């Protein structure tokens, strides 16, 4: 090997590197924290592989399945809730198996740093009978990706590599290796294996059961499942990031480190349990390992002292297992700093209008979910990707069209392309009279600006025809489709009033690129003109972080934060905010 360089790598970058070294030829994904950087890193290898942003995780998974069927190594990656969207193909590809190796990377978010729930992908994998590998650091993230492809081909199964936020967004050293040359597999028609209608699927279900049994037995000898016998008074079964907390707190204790967490190596676990006096199972979120260990009649301690909620820490283990804590000071009592819309964000302008009109919004997933909190306080509901349009439709069907005369649905352009478009088809088909506002900022904002089908650019940087959201809505047959500049608050107010009043389905597309894209050159900064200020506080209403109130009631604008969007200028009736250009 000529290239044996060791470099610091983000967990997600290491996953991408592992895919590259494993000879992956096709990757598809939809961005979602904490999985996004996998594809963003994979694209640097685009001379050797193809990678794309798909509109959603179901599509991404199907793209990867097709590539596997065609005989190459393929992958898809997504956050945990994306696995729900992809669950339909996932459950069935478990029956079909693979031709080229097939790996799904699922990134869970214990502690919900950037998610709407804390679900545990291992449970989905168990239900779908798909093996799960769980790495503990960046080196393992890379190594396990390569092992996942070998496993996938050897056992004819898709494999899930499960990470968590802490692994995905931590950096540690990784030794680079060269890309493996994996020859494409020849294609042979095999409808009993690839056409899942009942007669065929019945046969495949037997294969799945047998596969899982063999894997459970063989995995007792896998090197990723490692018995570390030290002091045998206490033994831990651990995997992933919690393994590191165990080593940090009790470096002398024995550990059975599991790399494969589904199916579990029963014989190995029995052997380990017989060697230690007291057995603990340490796993974040659901008691998946613990429940199975107990079902085999093995006594262990788990969730009765560890929580199912949030992220673990070394100190939490120290307290739960040893009854000790490091000496700690209480944190200072300081005001919270919740995330907010950026200065110059077009969503702030739209919400300022909706707030003024006292309109409620059925919300969706993205930066604009932040419109739920004060001072904008517009969004009332948020469930999942694409849900805004359909939940508002349900409200109307429950209570009638007058009930939603002070409601709109708000959804971003990327989320609309993800699954919102299906909800809009339903709203049109089932005669909804709701008003849908598509907040089009020309990007997938919250995850850090990824392209999508309506931006005109691909993950690999190719310029392609963009889907025109306006024409798409028109093509469905919707009569009332209006485009408005997101910062033209007077026109926006007029259009919202008109469309909400109509007894017909309306779509308002508010357009202005995300300020972080830098698409519009910043021409000036907003500056207060103190002698014209009447101290009315109107400019403070949108909650721009660049504007603060002085003790005398006038305002200051932080010139390092201001992006010159002029929303405050539009809000001021007295001309007391000018520009520095």
């Amino acid at each position, binding site marked *: 090997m000529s290239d044996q360089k060791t470099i610091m790598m983000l967990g997600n970058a290491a996953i991408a590197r592992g895919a590259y070294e494993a000879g992956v030829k096709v990757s598809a994904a939809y961005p979602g924290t904490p999985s996004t950087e996998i594809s963003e890193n994979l694209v640097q290898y685009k001379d050797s592989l193809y990678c794309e942003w798909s509109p959603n995780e179901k599509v991404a998974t199907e793209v990867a399945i097709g590539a596997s069927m065609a005989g190459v190594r393929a992958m898809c990656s997504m956050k945990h809730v994306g696995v729900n969207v992809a669950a339909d193909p996932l459950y069935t590809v478990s029956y079909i198996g693979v031709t080229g190796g097939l790996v799904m990377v699922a990134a869970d978010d214990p502690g919900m740093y950037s998610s709407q729930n804390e679900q545990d992908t291992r449970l989905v994998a168990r239900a779908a009978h798909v093996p799960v590998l769980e790495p503990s650091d960046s080196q393992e993230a890379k190594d396990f990706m390569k092992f996942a492809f070998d496993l996938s081909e050897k056992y004819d199964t898709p494999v899930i590599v499960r990470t968590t936020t802490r692994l995905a*967004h931590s*950096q540690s050293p990784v030794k680079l290796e060269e890309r493996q040359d994996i020859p494409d597999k020849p294609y042979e028609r095999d409808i009993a294996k690839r056409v899942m209608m009942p007669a065929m699927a019945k046969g495949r279900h037997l294969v799945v059961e047998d596969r899982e049994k063999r894997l459970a037995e063989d995995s007792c000898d896998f090197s990723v499942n490692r018995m570390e016998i030290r002091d045998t008074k206490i033994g831990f079964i651990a995997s992933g990031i919690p393994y590191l907390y165990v080593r940090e707190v009790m470096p002398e204790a024995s550990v059975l480190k599991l790399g494969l967490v589904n199916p579990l190596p029963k014989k190995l676990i029995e052997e380990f349990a017989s060697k230690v006096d007291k057995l603990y199972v340490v796993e974040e979120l659901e008691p998946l390992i613990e429940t199975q260990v107990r079902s085999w009649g093995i006594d262990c301690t788990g969730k009765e002292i560890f929580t199912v909620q949030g992220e673990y820490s070394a100190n939490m283990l120290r307290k739960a297992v040893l009854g000790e804590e490091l000496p*700690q000071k209480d944190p200072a009592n300081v005001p919270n700093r919740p995330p907010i819309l950026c200065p110059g964000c077009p969503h702030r302008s739209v919400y300022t209008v909706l707030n003024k009109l006292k309109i409620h919004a059925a919300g969706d997933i993205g930066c604009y979910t932040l419109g739920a909190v004060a001072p904008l306080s517009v969004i009332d509901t948020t469930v999942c990707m694409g849900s805004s349009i359909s939940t508002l439709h349900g409200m109307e069907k429950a209570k009638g069209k007058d009930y939603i005369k002070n409601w709109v649905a708000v959804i971003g352009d990327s989320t609309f392309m993800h699954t919102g478009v299906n909800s809009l088809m339903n709203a049109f088909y089932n005669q909804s009279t709701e008003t849908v506002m598509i907040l089009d900022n020309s990007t997938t904002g919250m995850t850090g600006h990824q392209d999508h089908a309506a931006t005109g650019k691909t993950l690999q940087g190719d310029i392609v025809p963009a889907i025109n959201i306006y024409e798409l809505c028109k093509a469905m047959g919707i009569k009332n489709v209006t485009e408005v500049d997101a910062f033209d608050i007077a026109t926006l107010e007029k259009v919202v009033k008109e469309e909400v009043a109509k007894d017909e389905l309306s779509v308002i597309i508010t357009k202005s690129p995300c300020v972080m894209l830098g698409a519009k050159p910043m021409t000036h900064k907003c500056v207060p003109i103190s002698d014209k200020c009447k101290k009315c506080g109107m400019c*403070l209403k949108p909650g721009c972080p660049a504007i603060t109130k002085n003790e005398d009631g006038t305002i200051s604008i932080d010139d390092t934060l201001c992006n010159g969007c002029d929303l405050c200028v539009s809000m001021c009736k007295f001309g007391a905010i000018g520009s520095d250009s």
Partner: protein
Amino acid sequence: MDTRNIMIVGVGGQGTLLTSRVLGGVMQDAGYTVKMSEVHGMAQRGGSVVTFVRYGDEVFEPIVEEGCADLLIAFERLEAMRYAHFLKKDGVLIVNDQRMDPMPVVMGAAAYPENIIEDLSKEYKVISVDAMAEAKKLGNPKVFNVIILGVAAKHMDFSVESWNSVIEKTVKEKFIDINKQAFATGYAI
């Protein structure tokens, strides 16, 4: 060597990630095992953010526990106060003397604490620097984070050459010179 613990805290968007990457790179080049943990996603939108950097001969967990930080680098006063309890007894706190009001303060629902630096100085070794003013003097407010890094570098045992070489590898080519100037400015404070 015992594992050393560093934290960088600030407001999402202030550039804590770049700073931690330079830090980690320098330690890596010096032959240490390094682990870092970052915050991406929603909190990056103006929320309170924290990055952990640990280095030594063998490092397990990537996060720093409360009461264990040797060095806390805070990009904003209120954030310094929020995380000060992570410092160990003789730990050093480097704070950028800047005030950024969080939304509860902007809306009048909470008060921004007075005398933060004076109060923290009673308990910790505090080095306060107005990095934003220095950055504006250099003509680019964005490099205030590398000025703070320069200040912090004086409390660590790595050569100036080593810092500069990592800065060269980490930032975009057209910003290398301004960032090296910023580092030198901080190092001279």
